[in-house]
């Protein structure tokens, strides 16, 4: 709740309210994600007085028409402002940050509107989609920035923009950015990123190289003695260890000389049996004195947390149900306008929820750190309880004892001590309360 109050305060300052639907639309969009309402049309079945109170009108639950209309009219510049002001820049400030940039494609199945196509990795096909590009701090495990685009925009188109944004607003002491292969499809893209790293004192870049056949052929021809073999634990306890061989070489980009060659870490994962080995080449601006090949590989592997966060967002926070970016009221359905506001707003609210749940789990203790949204929601958020509205306060009483209730007590005491007031409930004081656990077995 304290985070929602902050977001609401910022939303009031950033978003216009021409139709008087800001309060209901914004609060419903936030609380839907928190309590786990998957789709906007599920609001039709809602008749919960608690949800009605949370969303700003104790008289009735919100309707999908009103919430949908509010989302549709969100302006991109106002949403950008909201995203910027709610970004957790403090996790980057004066830190040695490791930030991954990657895209998430949201497939669209519209036949009526001809929207731009892009490659959807999970479906392994080229189809109509819209994309959300996120910056993710892989050390703190928090989303730090977002940008919504049509489906034909690629990571290489926004990589420079997102990097500059992080440097400008996050002000890290050292920023090490990680990109997937989409950021360096052409040698010119790779050079642009590496040039930015050369020109900026506190920026380093590592990106996975595209496995073009002519490059792979060169890497495969590297002498065997240049590879250093490492053993890594297998998939499970009984599995044999994995063998990884690392070599360091340089790659001459197209149209460049040998002096401009890029440092390349070639990682060869040996697959036992008849299967082919896997090759993971990395371009990096870090020189050999700054980090060994193994260290570069270890840091790049942290990017997997970013991919994992997308899975969590999709399955636990319903990211793929984000509002459409194309304008359904365009006069020409063959060329509908792209409205960044609704898509980016819902995408960023999902990321904010991810961050807030991360903070919540971290405060609960080390046993809960890294818990998924769904786990925390099932354990702590969707609990039966009673609401008592007095003239001065709103008392939320969890009247049935639940598992891990004791873990929550320090947080409840902290929130109560902070004396949060809820603006949309006549500024009443928020008080959280739990029942007394039964004594004995």
């Amino acid at each position, binding site marked *: 709740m304290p985070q929602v109050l902050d977001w609401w305060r910022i939303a009031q300052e950033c978003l216009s309210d021409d139709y008087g639907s800001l309060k209901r639309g914004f609060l419903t969009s936030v609380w839907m994600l928190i309590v786990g309402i998957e789709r906007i049309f599920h609001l039709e079945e809602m008749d919960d007085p608690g949800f009605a109170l949370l969303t700003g009108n104790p*008289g*009735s639950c919100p309707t999908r028409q009103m919430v949908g209309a509010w989302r549709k009219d969100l302006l991109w510049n106002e949403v950008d402002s909201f995203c910027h002001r709610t970004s957790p820049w403090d996790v980057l400030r004066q830190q040695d940050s490791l930030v991954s940039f990657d895209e998430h494609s949201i497939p669209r199945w519209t036949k009526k509107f001809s929207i731009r196509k892009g490659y959807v990795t999970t479906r392994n096909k080229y189809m109509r989609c819209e994309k959300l590009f996120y910056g993710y701090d892989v050390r703190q495990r928090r989303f730090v920035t977002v940008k919504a685009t049509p489906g034909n925009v690629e990571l290489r188109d926004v990589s420079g923009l997102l990097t500059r944004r992080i440097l400008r607003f996050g002000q890290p002491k050292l920023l090490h950015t990680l990109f997937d292969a989409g950021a360096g499809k052409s040698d010119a893209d790779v050079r642009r990123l590496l040039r930015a790293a050369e020109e900026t004192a506190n920026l380093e870049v590592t990106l996975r190289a595209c496995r073009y056949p002519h490059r792979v052929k060169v890497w495969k021809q590297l002498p065997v003695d240049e590879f250093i073999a490492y053993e890594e634990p297998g998939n499970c306890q009984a599995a044999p260890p994995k063998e990884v061989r690392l070599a360091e070489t340089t790659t001459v980009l197209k149209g460049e000389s040998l002096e401009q060659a890029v440092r390349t870490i070639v990682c060869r994962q040996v697959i036992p049996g008849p299967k082919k080995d896997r090759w993971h080449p990395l371009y990096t601006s870090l020189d050999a004195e700054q980090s060994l090949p193994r260290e570069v590989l270890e840091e790049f592997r942290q990017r997997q947390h970013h991919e994992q966060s997308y899975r969590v967002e999709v399955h636990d926070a319903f990211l793929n149900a984000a509002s459409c970016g194309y304008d359904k009221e365009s006069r020409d359905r063959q060329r509908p306008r792209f409205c960044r506001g609704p898509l980016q707003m819902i995408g960023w609210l999902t990321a904010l929820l991810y961050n807030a749940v991360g903070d919540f789990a971290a405060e609960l203790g080390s046993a809960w750190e890294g818990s998924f949204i769904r786990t925390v929601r099932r354990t702590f958020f969707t609990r039966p309880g*009673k609401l008592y509205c*007095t*003239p*001065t306060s709103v008392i939320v*009483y969890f009247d049935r004892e639940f598992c891990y209730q004791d873990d929550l007590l320090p947080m409840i*005491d902290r929130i109560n001590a902070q004396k949060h007031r809820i603006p949309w409930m006549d500024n009443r004081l928020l008080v959280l*309360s739990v029942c007394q656990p039964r004594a004995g077995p």
Partner: protein
Amino acid sequence: MAREGISFDQWVDEARIPRRLQSPEHLAVLRAAFVFLQQAGNDYASQRIAAHFLLNCQLGWKLAQVARLVGIARPTASRQNKLSSRQVVCEIQHRFAGRPYEKLLPRYTGPIAQFLVTHPQASRDDLLDFIESTWNVRVSLTALHNFLKQYGLDRASLDQAASGKPSHLAEDERALIEALEQPSAPGLPLPRPPEDFFLDTLNTRVPSS
């Protein structure tokens, strides 16, 4: 104060008890108190018990004299005066627990609100007993008053909240309990919730069939 190594006469002299309050009857009681303090020790509980007895035995000693006898300050003795034996024992217990009274935490509001809603006629003593039985804490009436007022659970606030709108079974727990306690009237339909309880009727177009 009955220090070790001090005689009974010295103890009485140091307390500056006037001669008229040193009759054989007075001295017998004082000797018993002296032996008690010598035997039980000079801890807080013994001093409180001895002071409480000397103040309430109706032998005419002044507050300051009793304070000097048991070794406490005059204002402290004044504060401890006119308390019941039960309150003295409670204060001793709380003193050992770290404070004279326990603290009411904000997270206790839920059960307290539920108790007040389900027991509208409950007195403050009933509420104190409920708090003590639930959380095993004893709080002062002042603390309870401030707590209830802060969270809008005092009688005036509850009455104001109740009078603001007519109660309905679907919304008001108290009304529901009252209705359940009433004998059911055969043939009467169940009351319908107010119209604003239901969602608006859908106005989207549906395929005609």
